[in-house]
C-alpha cells in the first residue's frame, strides 16, 4: 500500500517535470515544423526555453490601473496547469489521486486558468485587452458544449467519467474504431484546437491587434509574468494534446507501478504528443484563420458531432 503511494508520487513528479519541459519544447517543435514547410530553417526547437530564461531576467511591469488580479493571473494559470500535470493520467494510470480525478474536474480546473486570464485582461483597462477578453470568452463559451458533450459520449462507453478508468477502458478494448469513439474524438480535437487558441480559431503568430484573440489579452504582460503565461499556455496545450492522445491511443501508458513502465509511459507520451503536435502544425500551415463569427459554426459542428456520438453510444451499445 505504502509503496503504491510512493510510486504514485514518483509518477506524478515525473509527469510534472516532463510537462514543465514538454510545454515549451512542443511550442518550439510546432514552430519548427511550420518554418520548415514555409521554406525556412526556423528557430531551434529549444528556442522557447531560451525565450523563457531571458524573460525571467526582465523587470515585471504593471499598468497604472491594474489591481492584484493582474499580478495573480499568471500564477493561477501556471498553478492550474501544474496541478493537472501531476494529477492526470498522462504517462501512468497510477498517479496521485488518480481514482478521484475525473474529466469534468480537469475541464473546470483548466477553466480556472482561463477565467484568471479573462479577468486580468479587463483589469488592464485598455481597449485591446477588453476586446481580446470578450472574444476569448465567446470562443470559450462556444467550445464548452462541444467539449462537455464529447466527454459525456466517451464517459458513456466506460460508464464513468474518471480519467484513469476512461483511459484504462481504452487500453482494455480491442476495437478502437467504434463510431461513438471516433466522433467524440473528432469533436474533442476541434475543441482542443479552439481551447488552446490554434488556427483556424486564433492565430498565435499575429501582430495585428484587431485580429487577435488570445494575444490581445496579454499585451500588457512583461518579463516573468509573460514567461509564466507563455509557459502556462504551452503546458495547457501539451496537457490537452496528451489527454487527447491517451484517450485516442492509450498504448504505452503505464498500467502498473514501477520504474520501467513509467519510463516506457513517458517515452510513449512524448512520441504521441510529438506526433499530434506535428499534425496540428501541418494542419495549421494548410488552413487560413476563420473569420471570428465563423468560429461558432465550426464549434457548433463539433457540438453536433458530439451529440451524434452520444446517440451512437446509446443506440449501438
Amino acid at each position, binding site marked *: 500500500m505504502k509503496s503504491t503511494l510512493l510510486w504514485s508520487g514518483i509518477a506524478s513528479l515525473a509527469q510534472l517535470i516532463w510537462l514543465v519541459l514538454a510545454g515549451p519544447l512542443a511550442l518550439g517543435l510546432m514552430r519548427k515544423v511550420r518554418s520548415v514547410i514555409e521554406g525556412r530553417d526556423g528557430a531551434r526547437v529549444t528556442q522557447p526555453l531560451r525565450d523563457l530564461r531571458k524573460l525571467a531576467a526582465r523587470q515585471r511591469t504593471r499598468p497604472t490601473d491594474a489591481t492584484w488580479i493582474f499580478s495573480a493571473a499568471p500564477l493561477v494559470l501556471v498553478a492550474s496547469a501544474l496541478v493537472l500535470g501531476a494529477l492526470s493520467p498522462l504517462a501512468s494510470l497510477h498517479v496521485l*489521486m488518480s481514482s478521484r480525478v475525473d474529466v469534468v474536474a480537469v475541464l473546470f480546473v483548466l477553466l480556472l486558468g482561463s477565467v484568471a486570464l479573462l479577468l486580468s485582461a479587463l483589469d488592464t483597462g485598455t481597449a485591446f485587452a477588453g476586446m481580446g477578453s470578450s472574444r476569448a470568452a465567446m470562443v470559450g*463559451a462556444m467550445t464548452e458544449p462541444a467539449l462537455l458533450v464529447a466527454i459525456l459520449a466517451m464517459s458513456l462507453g466506460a460508464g464513468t467519467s474518471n480519467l484513469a478508468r476512461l483511459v484504462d477502458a481504452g487500453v482494455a478494448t480491442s476495437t478502437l474504431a467504434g463510431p461513438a469513439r471516433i466522433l467524440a474524438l473528432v469533436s474533442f480535437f476541434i475543441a482542443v484546437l479552439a481551447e488552446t487558441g490554434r488556427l483556424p480559431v486564433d492565430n498565435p503568430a499575429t501582430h495585428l491587434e484587431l485580429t487577435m484573440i488570445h494575444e490581445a489579452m496579454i499585451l500588457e504582460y512583461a518579463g516573468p509574468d509573460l514567461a509564466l503565461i507563455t509557459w502556462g499556455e504551452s503546458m495547457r496545450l501539451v496537457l490537452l494534446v496528451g489527454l487527447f492522445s491517451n484517450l485516442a491511443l492509450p498504448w504505452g501508458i503505464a498500467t502498473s507501478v514501477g520504474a520501467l513502465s513509467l519510463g516506457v509511459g513517458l517515452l510513449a507520451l512524448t512520441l504521441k504528443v510529438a506526433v499530434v503536435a506535428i499534425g496540428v502544425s501541418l494542419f495549421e500551415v494548410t488552413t487560413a484563420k476563420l473569420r471570428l463569427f465563423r468560429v461558432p459554426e465550426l464549434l457548433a459542428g463539433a457540438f453536433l458531432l458530439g451529440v451524434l456520438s452520444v446517440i451512437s453510444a446509446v443506440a449501438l451499445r
Partner: protein
Amino acid sequence: MTRLLALTVVAGLAAIAWGALSSRARVPLSALALVVSSAGAATLAVRVLATGTNFAWSQTNVLPLGGLDVRLTPLGALFVLVSAVVAIASSVYWTGYARHAMAGRSASASFALFTLSLLVVPMAGNVTTFLFAWELMALSSLILVAHDHARRPESISAARWYAVMTQGGAGAITLALVGLAAHAHSTRFSAIATASTHLSGAVASTFFLFALAGFASKAGVVPLHVWLPKAHAEAPGPVSALMSGAMVNLGVYGIILVGRTLLPQGPQWWWLVVSLLGGTTAAVGALYAATSRDLKRLLAYSTSDNMGLVLLALGASGLSLSTQHPRVASLALATAMVLLVNHSLFKSTLFLGAGAVHAATGSRNMDELGGLSRLMPLTSVTFLVGALAVSAIPPLNGFTGEWLLFQSLLHSLASHDVASVVAGTLAVAAMALTGGLTIIAFVKAFGITFLGRGRTERALGAHEATFSMRVAQGALALACVATGVVPYLLVGVVARGLAGVASPSISGWATLRLSSLSGALTPLFLSGALLGALALVAGWRTLVQRRHGFANVATLEAWGSGRHHQSPQMQYTATSYGEPILRVFDDVLRPDRDLDVSHVVESRYYLERIRYRASNEDVIERFLYRPALALLRAWARRVRVLANGSVHRYLAYGLAALVVILVILK
C-alpha cells in the same frame, strides 16, 4: 421545539410591529428581531435535520379550513435553514443599507413580514397554512418591489408585472391544492398524499400542471420568468438577495411537494416536461445574463438560469425513478438540492454586492461603472467569490454542483429508456452551453464593474460599503468558499434533508463518492494542490525578480499603441463585451439595432456623429406577452361598447342575466 417556533414567530411579529410603529432605531431593532427570529427557525430546522423526525404543531381555531398546521419535515427544514441563513445575512446588511434606502415604515414592516413568511412557508403542514403564508410572502414582496415608486417610475411597471404574475401563479397553486384537498376531504398534506393513490391519472395530471405553472412562475421558469428580471432589479439590495436566495427556492419546494410528496405516482411525462422547461430556462436565462448590461438584471437572469439547472436535475430524478433506477433518482434529487443551496449562497452574496455598488454609485448600469475594486476592496472580493462560484470554478461551491449534475445526467443516460436518453442529452447540452455563457456573464459582471478604470464620475466617487454590509457579504462569501472546499458541509446537510424522500447517494468527508455508482471528487485535496502550486510559482517569480536585482514592479501607463490620449471610455463596456454573443445568437435573441450616421453639411466624407442604439429586450416578453396584452386590450375596447353609461342598459343586462339563469335552472 415548540418554544423555538414560538421564538421565531414572536420575534418576527415584533420585528413587523417595531418596523411599522417605531420611529426611533427602527431599522437596527427590527433587524435584530429578525435575526433572532431567523436564528430560532434555523435552530429548529437543524434539530429536525439532526433527529430526522418531523416537528408538528397545530392550532385549529386560528384559521378556517383546518386551521394553522405546522409540520416541519426534514425536506422543509432544509429550505427553512437556507432561508434563515440568507435572512440573517440580509437583515444584518439591511442595517447598513438603510442609510441609503429602505428605511421607511412600510418598507421596514414589509421586509420583516417577507422574511417571516419565507420561514413559515416550508413549515406548512396543510393547504390553508401554506396558501396563507404564500400570499403574505407575495404581498409583502410586492410592496418592497414598489417601495421606491416615487423616485423610480420603472419600479411601478416592475411591480405591476410582478403583481400579475405572482397572483396568477398563486391562483393556479390555489386551484391545484384546493382541488387536491377537496378530493382528499382534508387540507392536511399527509392526508392528501395517502388519498392521491385513488386519484385518476387525468385529474392528477391536471392538478400537477396547474401547480407546476404556479410554482414555476415563482421559480422564474421560462416562459413565466418575465417578472423576475424586473422585480429583482427594482427591489432594494437585501430584498433582491432574499428573493433570489430564498423566495425562488420555494417554487422548487412546491414542485417537489406536489410532484414527489403529494402525488408520488406521477407518470413519466411530467418529469420530461420539467426537464424540457429546465433546459429552456437555463439556456434563455444564461443568454440574457451574458448580454445584459444592468448588473442586477444580469444577476436575475442568472437566477433563472440556475433554477433551470435545478429543474434539469429534478427532471432527471423523476425520469430515473419512473424507469426503476432509484439510485440515480436519489443522486439527481440530491444534486438538485445541492444546486439550490449553492445558488442561495452565491446569489445572495452577489445581490448584496450589487446592492452595495448601487448604494455607492447610484447606478446599476455597468457601462457607467468600472474600477470599483480600489474604492470598494472588500465588496469586490466577495463579489469575485460569488462570481467564480456561480461560474462553477473550483474550488468554490458551484463547482461541486456542476460536477454532481454532470454525474447525474451521465448515469441517467445509462438507462435504455428513450425519454431519459433524449432528455439527458439535451440536458447536458443545455448545461454545457449555460456553463460557458455564465462565465461570460460573470467575467463581465465582475470585470466591467470592478476592474479597469472608472467610466463616469459616479464610479469614481464610490465608497466602500458600511461595516454591517461588509460583514453580511463577507460571511456569505466565506460560506461559498467553505462549502466549496469541504462540500460535505453541504452534501451532508442535503442528505439529511432528503432522508425521508430518497436513499443516501453521496458519501465521504474529504472525497465525495457516489454510492454504488462510479464517480469521486475531492475538492479539498484539489484546492490544497492548487494552493501549493500557487505558492511554488509565486515563490519562483519573487526569487527571479530578486536575483536580477528588481526591487519592485514598474508601474507604467497602459499600452495603447502609442496613442496620445487613452480615456476610460475607450475600454470595452458591458454592452460591447456581450456583443459577440448577441451576434452569434442573433436568430434567438433578435436584438434591435439601429445605426444612425449624420454627415457634416459641407462634405459627405466627414461625419458629424454616429449614434448606435441597441436594445435587447426579452424576446419572450416581446413575442409572447406583448401580442397577448395587445389582443386583450383590443378585446377590452370592444367590450367597452356594452358599457355606455346608460342606467337602463345596465338594468337590462341584469334582467337578461336573471332570465338566462332561470332558463338554465328550470
